[in-house]
């Protein structure tokens, strides 16, 4: 089965900034002596994929198609699962399911919460 492509491959500033930080799990984990091969957010990310598919908001075939295209182009240098996360955010932004501005705002709020003493 082929999936018709209408994926917008234009780089997105927020996601470009993230991918250029070099903070992928395979970089961070050895730095701290952690041997778990997967970041703790990997399964929650799969939960998001599945929840979006189940609700019809982002069907699995469309997400997978976009993930493949983005993974072969814009995010080809990024390992999984970071690549899958960037591809999801990219797809949601380009489809108007989220806006970059609100995502930036929310990320700021989340970070502040996680770093709270």
């Amino acid at each position, binding site marked *: 089965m082929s999936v018709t492509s209408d994926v917008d491959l234009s780089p997105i500033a927020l996601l470009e900034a993230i991918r250029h930080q070099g903070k992928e799990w395979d970089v961070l984990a050895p730095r701290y002596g952690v041997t778990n091969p997967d970041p703790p957010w990997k399964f929650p990310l799969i939960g998001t994929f599945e929840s979006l598919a189940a609700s019809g908001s982002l069907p699995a075939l469309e997400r997978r198609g976009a993930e493949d295209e983005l993974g072969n182009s814009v995010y080809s240098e990024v390992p999984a699962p970071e690549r899958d996360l960037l591809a999801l955010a990219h797809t949601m932004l380009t489809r108007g399911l989220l806006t970059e501005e*609100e995502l930036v705002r929310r990320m700021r709020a989340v970070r502040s919460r996680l770093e709270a003493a």
Partner: protein
Amino acid sequence: MTTAHEHSHSGDDHAHKAAPMVEEISDYEVLELAVRELCIERGLFTAEDHRRFTEFAESIGPAAGSRLVAKVWTDPAFKKRVLEDGTKACKEIGIDWFEPTGFGTPSDYTHFVALEDTPTLHHVIVCTLCSCYPRPLLGHSPYWYRSTNYRRRLVRWPRQVLAEFGLILPPEVEIRVEDSNQKCRFMVIPMRPEGTKNWTEEQLAKIVTRDCMIGVALPTPGKTEDFHPVHKASRPAESSPPKAAE
């Protein structure tokens, strides 16, 4: 009032060092949470949906693949359908690759091909590029499957790598390595072993372990799990037996 952390972590009874952890918060971690929260706020799904799917994704294993192989061994018509169109035949055992949110799962849309072993041909699967794996059937890939060692060397020296898993095949058996990719996943249908005549599908499924379906082991009567050595405890408990909850 007590809290969960008021017990001692430094007493002689269970002094231990905390496992290392990544002590910084990456933007990936923050992004995952931010996207999820915005989805929930927008009503795209609920937090309960998310928890349920996450729990399901974490819990899948190779049982579906084992069922498929057992059915192939006992039902020639099913075997024919599996070899002709593996993706379609999987629906008969409740795995729908086109509907990952059904009993199938997680987030793997792909084309599935079953590889039948014969007395002169043995298959083994790999993903040389990354870690593609038939998750709806086999669950999550083992760590070694994703290692550079396995991915690099299996395609060059399959016989040697299989021997490292304890699988030594006679020279007359051809070894074929199938490289998975984004759109095509493979799984090995091993040969039914001797000594299993009249076994039920359920009995047969128990000896079809994950490693047999990857192709680094062969099904054997009496062997119902992939054995991976575990280090002996360096300080085994000396006095009381372990509590039930532990």
